[in-house]
């Protein structure tokens, strides 16, 4: 029997197999949104728990990675809502993601604060569309909205970011 069919019927081995196959992709997707390795790990666990809980609602002919990405995005947005007023945008994922040295510490801090101040729904599209350059179609799919709605969110995020950066004295 197909793996996805067995998963929908609650087969634990099928779930374990899907976890092994997709957990790295789910982790990477979440890390791009929350930019905190510890939180991304916890949210990957949360995502696979939600996936397990909803196995009966999943139709075997659907696209599993896209479904998992949508659940992961919701979990990440929930996390951003919970931690919105805490530490702004950690970027300690790896040495390879060191910020560009041409940007001053003050500018970097202002940009981090401006992004952290965005509402979670706008913060997600900013990070995925501007920083990670994910296609709008994929962002729309992961948020369960249309591509036009993503464009509207990007437009609103840009307006808010410009305002915040200008207030902080950063020319944007």
């Amino acid at each position, binding site marked *: 029997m197909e793996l996805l069919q067995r998963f929908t019927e609650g087969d634990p081995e099928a779930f*374990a197999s899907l*976890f*092994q196959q997709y*957990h*790295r992709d789910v*982790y*990477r997707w979440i*890390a*791009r949104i929350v*930019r905190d*390795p510890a939180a*991304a*790990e916890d949210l*990957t*666990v*949360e995502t*696979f*728990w939600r996936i*397990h809980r909803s196995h009966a609602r999943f139709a075997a002919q659907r696209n599993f990675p896209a479904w998992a990405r949508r659940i992961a995005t919701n979990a990440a947005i929930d996390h951003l809502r919970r931690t919105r007023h805490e530490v702004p*945008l950690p*970027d300690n*994922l*790896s040495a*390879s*993601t*060191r*910020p*560009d040295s*041409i*940007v001053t510490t003050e*500018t*970097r801090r202002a*940009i*981090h604060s401006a*992004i952290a101040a965005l509402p979670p729904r706008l913060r997600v599209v*900013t*990070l995925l569309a*501007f*920083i*990670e*350059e994910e296609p709008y179609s994929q962002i729309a799919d992961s948020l369960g909205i249309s591509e036009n709605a993503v464009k509207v969110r990007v437009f609103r995020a*840009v307006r808010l*970011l*410009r305002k915040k950066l200008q207030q902080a004295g*950063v020319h*944007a």
Partner: protein
Amino acid sequence: MSLNEEKNLRELQQLLKNAIPPLEDTTPRRDLWPAVQNRIATPLIHVPWWDWALLAAAALMFFLFPGMIPTLLYHL
């Protein structure tokens, strides 16, 4: 979108990317499978529907007869 707006948008994007570089390939630092298994094994706290019904009835009573609140507090 005009050419000028497009250019401004690209400049803003570059500024953001200079401050927050895109993530390169990253993987979890620990094995997450045991944590997933533990999470699944932990039972959800299930509140029976009649508890919710009782709570809703109490809320409705307090809303309709707010005079009951001080009386109830006095007897608690």
